[in-house]
């Protein structure tokens, strides 16, 4: 105790110094324009950094809600794209109206189960009949095609992934008329085969592959991948095309389920023609 008092006495001049300097500096900042400007600027600089950081942290906690909100907004925007509608313009003598009517609607869904390491890979999505999902609907993301819905329950949908040996997507080469089915090779999750491209087609390595729109499942123009390898077997009339997909199937979380509102109409028509032929 005595030692402590002695120490305090020894340090008393230091405390006096500190207290007086604090008084001086508060006086300086309060009564001197130039110094207080510097002080305010400096303080703002540091508190600004802190505020920025805390805002960033706060935003991080909001990310989940924000993702859901963005996914909803995306599905609304996708519906408004030109290729999500059919052109019902009537080209009469005088009037030309360029009106689009919705052909595709997009419903956002979350992937709750996914696999990439089987021969037949499936995805489970958290939307079902209640949300208007039907079988054979397409599943896409903004980066590419994910798969096709196979079975639907009230609340869930199971889709066969594009990483399924039996999934065939009707694809075409962007900007060129040639088309053919795209199928998974079964090994690398990013590698696919594009078939039926005739050898006179002007394809080169790096060409973009997209959906053709010839099926009733996907709208046209959805990205699939790019040509990685191109070869021609002797005697064959078709290219062997290896496609690297644009989408990494192992990381997808939010997807959009495509509903083609005119599918039954188109299919009925096609079936009627087939029946007549038989």
């Amino acid at each position, binding site marked *: 105790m005595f030692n402590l008092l002695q120490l305090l006495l020894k340090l*008393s*001049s*230091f405390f*006096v*110094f500190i207290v*007086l*300097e604090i*008084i*001086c*500096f*508060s*006086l*300086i900042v*309060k*009564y*001197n324009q*130039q*110094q207080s400007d*510097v*002080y305010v600027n*400096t303080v703002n600089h540091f508190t600004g950094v802190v505020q920025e950081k805390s805002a960033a942290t706060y935003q991080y906690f909001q990310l989940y809600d924000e993702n859901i909100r963005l996914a909803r907004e995306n599905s609304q925007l996708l519906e408004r794209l030109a290729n999500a509608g059919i052109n019902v313009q009537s080209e009469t003598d005088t009037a030309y109206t360029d009106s689009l009517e919705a052909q595709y609607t997009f419903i956002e869904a979350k992937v709750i189960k996914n696999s990439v390491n089987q021969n037949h890979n499936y995805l489970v999505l958290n939307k079902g009949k209640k949300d208007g999902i039907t079988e054979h609907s397409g599943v896409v993301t903004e980066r590419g095609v994910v798969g096709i819905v196979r079975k639907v329950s009230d609340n869930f949908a199971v889709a066969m992934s594009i990483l399924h040996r039996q999934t065939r997507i009707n694809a075409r080469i962007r900007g060129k008329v040639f088309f053919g089915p795209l199928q998974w090779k079964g090994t690398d999750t990013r590698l696919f085969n594009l078939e039926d491209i005739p050898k006179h087609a002007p394809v080169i390595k790096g060409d973009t592959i997209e959906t053709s729109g010839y099926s009733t499942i996907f709208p046209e123009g959805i990205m699939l991948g790019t040509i990685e390898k191109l070869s021609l077997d002797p005697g064959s009339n078709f290219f062997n095309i290896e496609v690297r997909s644009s989408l990494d199937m192992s990381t997808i979380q939010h997807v959009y389920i495509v509903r083609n509102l005119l599918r039954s109409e188109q299919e009925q028509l096609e079936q009627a023609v087939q029946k007549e032929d038989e």
Partner: protein
Amino acid sequence: MNSIIAGNVLRFLGLVIIQGLVFKNIGVGWEEFPYLHIIVFPIFIILLPLRTPRALIILLGFAIGITVDFFYNSLGVHASAAVFTAFLRPFLLRIMEPRGGYNVNYSPTAARMGLGWFLRYASIMLFLHLFFYFSVEAFTFVYIVDILLKTIVSFVVSMIFIIIYQLLFNPLD
């Protein structure tokens, strides 16, 4: 004893008046060359008797600093520098202690300690005071070159005035 206190009170008043009324106008009036500020009042802190308690030195430093601030209309700037100088004084005195030690009844004046010792001691004190003062005046080390330039220029001129003061009065205590 009483004469020492009276002498220091007179020195306090005289330095404040000459600093606040004469030297202030010389420094401030020179717009073309803003680096020169003649500051002599720290000599009050420099010359305080050796046996003055440390805390009292700091309080007296604050007192003369804040009084000069009233003349300079810069509340706190001179005071903070004076408090700083007063705080450093005991440490500097310990470093510069002569072989025989101090006679605690004396003041650190040229008459008591010798002119050479006094000039070294006073110039270190003044330099530290000016450096701290100009740092606080700028309130940022962004203008460190300006601060050093002001310190050096003002130090040389102020030191001349301190030597003149020494020659004029040659105070014993």
